C-alpha cells in the first residue's frame, strides 16, 4: 500500500471503518487519509462503498465501528462544528425543485447560519446567474449539479466532499464542472471527488484513494501511481524479443506500437535483449493509465 501525504496534514483521517446493512458488509475496516489542500479522487467500482463512506463522514449513517477525523476534529462528536467548514454534494443534490435557484441558495445559506452575501458570487462562479430565477426542477442535470456546487461553496468551505459529481453530465457539463473543481483546488481547498469513472479521476486528481469491496486497495499521489514502470520497446524482431523477455520472467504484451514490458525498467530490458544479440530501436518508459493500475490492483482485469 502506498501512503504519502503532500504536506503531512490529513484533512480526513479514517481508521477501521465498518458498516453493515443487515448481512451486507458495506465497509470492512476501511483506512485512509485524505491530504489537505489537494484534489483527491475517491475511486472505486459501483458498490465499493464510496457513498457509504461519504455518508459516514457526514454523520448521515452510523458506522458500526471505526474512527473518523475531519479537519482535525472527531466525527460525530464535533460534527456540528465541522459541517460549517465543509461543502457537500452527496448522491442527488438536495434541492427543492419547486423553488428557484436563488431561493435554494438562500435556504442553504440560512441552514448553514451564514448570510446571503456570497449567493450572487457563487451563482456567477457556477455560471447560473441568468438562470437563477428558474425553478430548480426545470434545470438540466448539469445545472442542478452546478447549483448544488454553488450551495456547497456558500460557506467558503475548507473541504469539499462531492459524491459522483460528474455522473450523468454530458461532455460539456463535465468539462465545465471539472474546470470549477480545478479552480477550487487551485485556491488551496481540499476537494474530494468520488467516481467510478477512472478517466474522471485521472483528469482531475492529485491524490487517489482506491477502494473496493469496502476496503482500501491503495492510496497515494496520482503521479507516483502512474509512474509504476512500464517500458515501451521497439525492435526489428518483436516476436523474438518478446520470447526472450518472457523467458527472463518479464510481463510482455505486444501491440501495434511494439512491446509493452510491465514491471521492469529500461536498463533491465536492454540488458536481457543485448545478451541475446538484439539491440532495440527504441526503449522508453511508458506511464500506466489509472485504468491499468486499478485493474491490476483490484484483479478485475482478469475477470
Amino acid at each position, binding site marked *: 500500500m502506498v501512503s504519502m501525504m503532500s504536506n503531512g496534514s490529513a484533512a480526513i483521517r479514517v481508521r477501521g471503518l465498518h458498516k453493515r446493512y443487515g448481512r451486507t458488509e458495506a465497509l470492512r475496516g476501511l483506512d485512509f487519509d485524505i491530504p489537505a489542500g489537494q484534489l483527491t479522487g475517491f475511486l472505486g467500482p459501483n458498490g465499493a462503498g464510496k457513498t457509504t463512506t461519504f*455518508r459516514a463522514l*457526514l*454523520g*448521515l*449513517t*452510523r458506522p458500526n465501528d471505526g474512527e473518523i477525523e475531519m479537519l482535525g476534529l472527531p466525527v*460525530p462528536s464535533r*460534527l*456540528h462544528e*465541522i*459541517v460549517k467548514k*465543509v461543502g*457537500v454534494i*452527496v*448522491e*442527488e*443534490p*438536495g*434541492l*427543492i425543485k*419547486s*423553488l428557484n435557484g436563488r*431561493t435554494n441558495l*438562500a*435556504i*442553504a445559506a*440560512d*441552514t*448553514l*447560519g*451564514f448570510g446571503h452575501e456570497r449567493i450572487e458570487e457563487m451563482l456567477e462562479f457556477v455560471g447560473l446567474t441568468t438562470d437563477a430565477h428558474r425553478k430548480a426542477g426545470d434545470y438540466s442535470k448539469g445545472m442542478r449539479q452546478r447549483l448544488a456546487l454553488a450551495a456547497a461553496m456558500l*460557506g467558503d468551505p475548507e473541504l469539499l466532499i462531492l459524491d459522483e459529481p460528474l455522473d450523468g453530465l454530458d461532455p460539456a457539463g463535465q468539462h465545465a464542472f471539472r474546470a470549477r473543481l480545478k479552480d477550487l483546488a487551485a485556491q488551496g481547498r481540499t476537494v474530494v471527488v468520488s467516481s467510478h469513472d477512472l478517466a474522471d479521476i485521472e483528469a482531475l486528481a492529485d491524490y487517489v484513494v482506491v477502494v473496493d469491496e469496502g476496503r482500501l486497495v491503495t492510496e497515494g499521489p496520482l503521479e507516483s501511481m502512474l509512474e509504476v514502470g512500464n517500458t515501451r520497446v521497439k525492435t526489428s524482431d518483436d516476436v523474438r524479443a518478446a520470447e526472450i523477455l518472457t523467458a527472463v520472467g518479464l510481463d510482455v504484451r505486444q501491440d501495434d506500437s511494439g512491446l509493452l514490458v510491465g514491471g521492469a525498467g529500461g536498463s533491465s530490458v536492454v540488458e536481457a535483449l543485448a545478451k541475446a544479440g538484439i539491440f532495440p530501436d527504441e526503449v522508453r518508459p511508458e506511464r500506466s493509465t489509472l485504468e491499468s493500475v486499478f485493474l491490476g490492483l483490484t484483479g478485475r482485469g482478469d475477470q
Partner: protein
Amino acid sequence: MSLVRAEYRKITRRKIYPVMTLLLVAFVGLGAFFLIVFGEIAPEAAEGLPVLEKPVVYEVGAQQAATQFWFPLILAVVLLGGELSTTVWATSLTRESRKGRQILARFGTYAVATTIAFLVAFCFWVALAAVFAPGEGFMEPADLVGVVWKSAVIAIAWTAVGTGAVSLLRSVGPAIGVGLAIYFAEGFLALWDPWENVSITAASTALFNVDFGGGFGGLIPGLGLPLWHQLTILAGWTALGLGLTWWGLQRRDA
C-alpha cells in the same frame, strides 16, 4: 434562528401553504354559510338549525377554524415527508448536523404557520358573522387573546402528531393516510367516554368551551373536561408526537 428563517422561506415560497390556507378558509366559510348566512337568506329552509347570535357566533367561529385538524396534519406530513423521501433532509443535515435543532425549526414553523392559517380562517368567519349574524357586540380582548393561544396550542399538538407520523413512515402518501386515519378514528373514539379523557380531538374541540345550542352540545366531546385536563392531554400528545418524530429520525439513517 437562521434555521427557522430557512423553514419560513420554504413554506412561504411554495404553493402548498397558501393553497391549503385557501382550502381551510373555504371549509370554514362553508360552515359559516350553513350556520350564519343560510338562516338569513333562506329562513324557512334553515328552520331547525341553531341561530348563532353575536357575540357567541365569534367564539363558534374560532372553534370552527381551529378544529380543522387535517390542516396541521397534512401540512406537516407533506412538508417534512417531502424532505425525508428525497435527499433534501440529508442535505440539510450536512449543513446543520444537530437533528434536534432541525426538527424544532420545522415543527415550530409548521405550528406557527398553522396558527396563522387558523386565524385567517377565523377572520373570514368574523367578517361573515359581522355582516349576517343577528345581535350585537364583539368578543372581549381577553377572549381574542384566548383565540390566539388556544389556536396555537391546538396547532402545536396536531403538528406534532403529523411530524411523528411522517417521521416513522418517511413517505408522504402513507403518512397522509395514517394522519387522516388518526384524524377520523380519534374523532370517533373521542365520543367513547373512557377515551375522551385522553383524546386529542376531545381536548382540542372542547378547549373553546363553546356549545352553540340546537342540541349539538352533546356531540362535542370533552366539554366536561376542565381546562387543565384539556391542556394536559394536548401537552401529552405534543410530547408523544415530538418523541416519535425524534425516534423516527434517529433510528434510521438520513
